[in-house]
């Protein structure tokens, strides 16, 4: 297999996994659309639902129980289908990543430019979701995660795409593997945590405005405590990994490549800001008056700084040594 074939395989796989994510999204939309009118039974509302609809026994006054059973089975089927399609998409996504690394000469890890970082970031978000689906019963998160991954993947393909190229000199170091892997894993965990916190806010607002609802997406979200706990678990996993990426491996590598372990480079500044915001989140969760709603808002602020740093700062600031762009190398072999 030649490098060119690997590259087209990678492009094909990315397109294919996009399609499969789209189908998965459709399946989840069908699932949730048919659940819209079905009232949530008290038991299902109290506990988070494994497969939404699977637990629901709808005995409305309008229809016979058979009909409701049928519709419940159908929604359960679409829910499961969506999950399986997501699993398939994640596998194809991984193939696209691996082929991307094989396409380079010499072969390398697929973390050389923004397209590849974004491809990996979305993969980690989707993979963590698939892996934690059972443990945290994440069925309620499905449509949002899949829509998020699909959107960001599209952004990557449309605006960030660049052909396979060898790594620039400053990037060819084993610290690339350690630093980027940890940063991207943390990004995935923070993103899932951020989505959970956003849903927490939606649910809290709906409860405050309308009281507990009988049916609909929001009513099927887990209880606020559960949402809060799941969000905390994701963030608590992400935070040490982020610390490792940003405050240990980043400085060590910066010291080796750029001679100074902390340069106040815009990317570093924003990574630091993200770290401080998430530190504030972890403190806020245990502080009276900040628990719950304010902590969730902080988590969202953290997610905003994270993704702004990931993509936005590259376009915002030209001084960054992390701006992986090809132009404007002044007197430096470092990747300015």
């Amino acid at each position, binding site marked *: 297999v030649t490098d060119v074939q690997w590259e087209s395989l990678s492009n094909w796989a990315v397109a294919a996994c996009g399609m499969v994510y789209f189908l998965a999204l459709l399946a989840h939309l069908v699932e949730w659309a048919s659940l819209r009118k079905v009232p949530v039974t008290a038991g299902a509302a109290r506990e988070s639902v494994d497969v939404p609809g699977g637990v629901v026994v709808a005995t409305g006054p309008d229809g016979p129980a058979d009909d409701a059973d049928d519709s419940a089975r159908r929604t359960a089927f679409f829910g499961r289908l969506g999950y399986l399609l997501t699993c398939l998409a994640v596998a194809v996504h991984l193939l696209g990543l691996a082929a991307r690394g094989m396409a380079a000469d010499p072969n390398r890890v697929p973390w050389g430019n923004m397209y590849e970082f974004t491809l990996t970031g979305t993969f980690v978000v989707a993979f963590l979701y698939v892996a934690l689906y059972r443990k945290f019963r994440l069925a309620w998160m499905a449509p949002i995660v899949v829509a998020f991954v699909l959107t960001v993947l599209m952004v990557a393909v449309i605006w960030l795409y660049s052909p396979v190229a060898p790594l*620039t000199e400053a990037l060819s170091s084993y610290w690339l593997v350690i630093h980027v892997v940890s940063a991207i894993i943390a990004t995935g965990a923070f993103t899932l945590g951020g989505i959970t916190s956003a849903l927490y806010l939606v649910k809290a607002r709906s409860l405050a405005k309308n009281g507990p609802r009988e049916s609909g997406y929001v009513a099927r979200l887990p209880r606020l405590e559960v949402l809060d706990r799941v969000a905390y678990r994701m963030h608590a996993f992400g935070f040490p990994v982020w610390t490792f990426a940003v405050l240990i491996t980043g400085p060590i590598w910066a010291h080796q490549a750029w*001679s100074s372990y902390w340069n106040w480079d815009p990317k570093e500044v924003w990574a630091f800001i993200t770290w401080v915001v998430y530190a504030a989140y972890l403190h806020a969760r245990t502080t009276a008056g900040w628990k719950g709603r304010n902590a969730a808002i902080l988590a969202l602020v953290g997610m905003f700084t994270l993704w702004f740093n990931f993509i936005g700062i590259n376009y915002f600031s030209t001084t960054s040594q992390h701006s992986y762009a090809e132009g404007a190398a002044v007197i430096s072999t470092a990747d300015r």
Partner: protein
Amino acid sequence: VNTALSTRPPEDDRRPGELTLRELLRWGWRQLTSMRTALVLLLLLALAAVPGSVIPQEGVDSLKTSTWQSDHPKLTPIYEKIGLFSVYDSVWFSAIYLLLMISLVGCILPRTLVYWRGLRAKPPAAPRNLGRLPEHASYSTSDDVDAVLDRARQLLRRRRYRISTTGEAVSAERGYLREAGNLLFHFSVLVVLVGFGLGSLFGYKGGVIVVQGSGFSNTVSQYDDFDPGRLFRADDMDPFYFKVDDFAADWLTSGPRAGMARGFTAGLSYQEDLDAPEKTYDLKVNHPLTIGDTDVFLIGHGYAPVITIRDGKGNEVTGGPTPFLPIDQTFQSIGVVKAQNAEPTQIGLEGEFYPTVAFSKQTGSYYSLFGKPVDPMVSLLVYTGDLHMSDGTSQSVYSLDKSDTTMLTKKNGAPYRLDLRPGQSVKLPHGLGTVSFDGLRPWVKIQISQTPGKWIALTGVVLALIGLLGSLFIRPRRVWVRARRERDGTLVEVAALDRSGGGDMAGVVDELVGALQGAARSASTDRKDES
């Protein structure tokens, strides 16, 4: 003399709301060390860091900063006044993180004392009504109270709980190390700050361009740019010497990164001090050379054309390689050559160097195709007159002071331009002399830094991570088991309390109840076997 009987204490003369200095201080300290203040300070710190990522910073990129300043003459004085060009050294940024550190100390000191006392304390006695705790369960058994409590103690000890028994209830607690991790994390933040502070106060960072074949000894005067910390002392510099023997790069000629170079290697021979034996080192990107406390980095490269000027009398007035600065990825470079001793008049050359020259009909000018010197050429303008080099003011070696010079022109008034390839030589008009382009040498940009305290900072941040892991993943919890004799057997109540805010206690209670009952069952079957 106040003899009037009064029940009012003297303090009450104050108006309501008035505080003594001591009370005020105590109030201020409480406010400062409260979690809310810490949170606000954290958010302020995040916010205060933002401008430094948008506005060019003097300490990060001084060239870009001065360009920005000349582009924004109205904003510059305002920005300068509030320190926006050096945000991370500014008073307000320092104030925020110093307050945060004080708040942190104020938080961890008392907590360390509390933790120290609590470390040896017994788990608290069981609440009267275990059924009121969020997670609880109960079951009945035929075993007697003591047997149940014995089993509970055994099971909990195996699960590494600390145990105490009061009356008919066992109290158990675990996860003491969470607070230790928490304290370690916060303490380590201080250690990191100390390490970082040492580096920026006592260290230095400097850059120098060294042409292949020349050497460098580590003294302040040898640097092109030098950025010492506030308390840096030149005596602390490591007295090493190195020479750049050769420089090589692999140029890519195909693929999407064609024109880019990789695999830069500068062959150095160096001595750690004047008496030390000579050693060699291949300096590469990502592979610095460490000598004593100092690290030597390869961060750039370029070309130094060897341009020789002979004046009107035939004397060689300047020679040797002159570094030109690259302005883009094709290594088109700019530079000047100055001949202040030339007779009859001083000569200055200014212009471009093209490693692989090409001509664009569209713009009517030369440009560079490729960074590798395949077909190098210099294109220079000639200035004569006073270059102001002996004024005593320092002058950049990359620019000419043209205020008292005239540009050499042709008869038709067009600029007189020297386009030279290696080996070529041109005789200047009016008997000014000759200019020859004798060859090409690469130069490397070397960055040298001495960062004391970097190991302290690294140790601090690693300890902080360990502490963080402890404080996030050790789950402190309390468990109580109470057994009470009832009419038809023993009622066993189990309850658990999560003390970390992230745990799910239902599983803990279920598992313990299962184990208690399972143990009971196997214990009872054992007894049957014995009988």
